[in-house]
């Protein structure tokens, strides 16, 4: 595999971006997610409004893949309803598991589809899914 097909420009951009890396001024809940075998962790903060996810942001540290995945996820999820968010999380987790997605499903994921190749790197799957699992906990809690 090629470096550029995993660490794509989009991933590099998101991993460096600080747009979604912040503390919310008003939050409804927060959730910490961690990967024991690398020691990395992130914290997600969420704010709901009118049944929708009004704001979402993260702090913490990790590898480029985990940071990019978190940032991409936030862009995708913000503004969505709980149910839709959970559905998107589910689709994303199946993408990374290497399950084939339908075209329609891929479309729903938007930019997050760039993380598809991670499914060929078993050692890094945990990085791609960290934020998504954390968000699932956060929404369900």
């Amino acid at each position, binding site marked *: *595999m*090629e*470096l*550029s097909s*995993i*660490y794509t*420009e989009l991933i*590099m951009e998101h991993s460096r971006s600080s747009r979604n890396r912040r503390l919310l001024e008003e939050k409804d809940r927060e959730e910490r997610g961690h990967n024991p*075998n*690398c*020691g*990395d962790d992130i914290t997600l903060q969420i704010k709901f409004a009118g049944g929708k996810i009004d704001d979402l942001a993260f702090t913490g*540290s*990790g*590898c*480029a*893949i985990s940071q990019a995945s978190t940032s991409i996820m936030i862009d995708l999820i913000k503004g969505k309803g709980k149910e839709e968010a959970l559905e998107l999380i589910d689709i994303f987790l199946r993408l990374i598991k290497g399950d084939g997605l339908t075209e329609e499903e891929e479309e729903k994921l938007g930019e997050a589809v760039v993380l598809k190749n991670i499914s060929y*790197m078993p*050692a*890094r799957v945990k*990085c791609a899914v960290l934020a998504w699992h954390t968000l699932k906990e956060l929404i369900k809690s």
Partner: protein
Amino acid sequence: MSRVALNYIYNENARTRRPIIINKEMGNKINPYLLKKDFPVFQDKVDGRELIYLDNAATTQKPYTVIEAVRKYSQQFHGNPHRGAHYLSVKATELYDQARQKVREFIKARSAKEIIFTRNTTEAINLVAYSYGMNFIDEGDEIVLSIAEHHSNILPWQQVARSRRARLKYMYLDEDGRLSKDEVKSKITERTKLVCLTHMSNVLGTIFPVREIIEYAHQKGALVLIDGAQGIPHVEVDVQELNADFYVFSGHKMLGPMGIGVLYAREELLEVMPPFLSGGDMIEYVSEDTASFAPLPEKFEAGTQNVEGAVGLAAAIDYLNSIGMDKIHQHEQDLTAYALERMQGISYLTLYGPTDLEERGGIISFNVAGIHPHDLASIVDLDGIALRAGHHCAQPLMKYLQLVASCRISFYLYNTKEDIDQLIDSLDRARSWFSNGTK
């Protein structure tokens, strides 16, 4: 630079699958290009790429001779050793005993009774913790570890300390990753019952002055366990000269098979220690309620042992001996000098561990500015380079160094200067990609 310029020797024998013996007359260096031919993994592309294997501290690759020894045993000589009068059982017993003798000679133990086969280093340490620690370490005693220990040489002692109400004390490292005399003297005292120390740090590459520390500990009345997982494979060890009380290591880190490790312990200690695992052949007489135990070494080997693992380990020792541990060590030192010299010149790299070659072996930890170690490991893997990223099962050390993770390369006899050059090229490419999106 002169000490790092390798003087390669070309040897015709190399094309055969025999270990290569380098005559002294031909110079005192080994030729890793020739040695590589003894290792099948380097003969074919791995996942479509030339393999550059720099993860030897995790596990080493196996020469044909080791693989063949295991295969031959499994095909022709397999039986359950001990107690059987039939040919295969006798043969398996004989090969198992010979392997034990081979290990004894290799580490220069007094007697084969002092060689207990285990699954790996971790099990060997657990054996000592359960059998010695849980029975001979008492309330108020102190167990002294270095902060550089592998989890396998920490967790069992945390458990002993907790159960026996003993105290765990850590010897910290100086800025260069060394153990100072002062630190040793301030931690090892009359209250110390046991000192547990790795021969070489699997993170920093520091080779600790184990002989001196053992001597000092003995003066204070303490016993010493040396975790030799990173010792034996790389330096000549004479357990009698070291005067170690316990010395443990793993076959898979010294060209041998997985599933076989060794506990060396002084006979007097093994004699008074109760069995750890029980059942199978480690008994003399068993009644419904009690049992008496077999003499050493069987007392500590319960159930059917891994004979093929032991046979493979013996073949690995033969291979190492055919090269010479002194030459292997020198080769690793040459590579380390070369790598340190090149890497110290690269501004985006931070190196950890001693800079003085006298105090270290062929394990180098580093980080690349702006690249998370796990990303780096994935990126260099795309170039066929195997290195390790993470906490290296040494979280207390990492915390002490204020690191979450590092990248680690570790050398063995088949590594070359070219491996290091290729690594650095790969690091350069990763660095440009991460800085500005070009390769």
